[in-house]
């Protein structure tokens, strides 16, 4: 049984990452690896779709915080969207819901990115 599935696709100069599964101490290193590879290439915009993530722990949140901070250093952007109830709660409990650019869906996230450029 696969605990986590990560798919990524390139759209213009942006990369969309679809994560499927629980994000916890077991799986967050896999997500970190994917994100850091993109950051190393200085991807201008990374979109993280969390529609199929029903659970995220502090290691998952920490991975996204690290990616956000590293991307900011070269002027990159990190957008997250489709947060499900329990995942949204973790961001609120962590008081990080205002730190990230969180959007309801891909269309809104893309619109925000294009409006900025």
């Amino acid at each position, binding site marked *: 049984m696969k*605990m986590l599935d990560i798919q990524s696709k390139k759209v213009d100069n942006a990369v969309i990452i679809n994560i499927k599964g*629980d994000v*916890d*101490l*077991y799986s967050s290193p896999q997500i970190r690896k994917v994100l850091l590879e993109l950051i190393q290439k200085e991807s201008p915009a990374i979109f993280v779709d969390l529609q199929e993530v029903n*659970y995220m*722990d*502090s*290691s998952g*949140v*920490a*991975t996204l*915080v*690290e990616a956000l*901070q590293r991307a900011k250093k070269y002027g990159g952007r990190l957008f997250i969207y489709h947060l499900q*109830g*329990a995942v949204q*709660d*973790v961001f609120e*409990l*962590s*008081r*990080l819901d205002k*730190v990230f650019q969180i959007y309801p869906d891909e269309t809104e996230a893309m619109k925000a990115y294009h409006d900025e450029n």
Partner: protein
Amino acid sequence: MPETLEFMIPAEPKYLKINRLSIKLLCELIGFSTVESNNITLAIDEACSNVIRHAYNGPSKEPIHIKCNIYGNKIEFLIRDFGRKANVDQIKSRELDEIRPGGLGVHLIKTVMDEVMYDTNFEKGNQLKLIKHFKGRK
């Protein structure tokens, strides 16, 4: 006398999900709302992750015992490990205005649970006691 359920998992991250499913189901079964059950599950999961990371210094075949005592007005979790003793004075939530990865687990546990107590008075290992009251039944 409380009703008691006990789980035991090896301190391996891949088994955390099994524990989460059990805790969530238990919380819903005894009357916590979905949101409360999710949050309690998060707190127990964070506690078990901390055992793996800090008490056992990484994945280990050593056990994590999770004892759940159900009382009329609350549920109590006793999370026991047999690893390195915790320095309770150093276990702190991070400052939330400091945006950095890590240090969030303890904050989440303390935010979600009503009572959080560390017991290091064991010959080997630690025990964390976490209590959540049923709303309106304190």
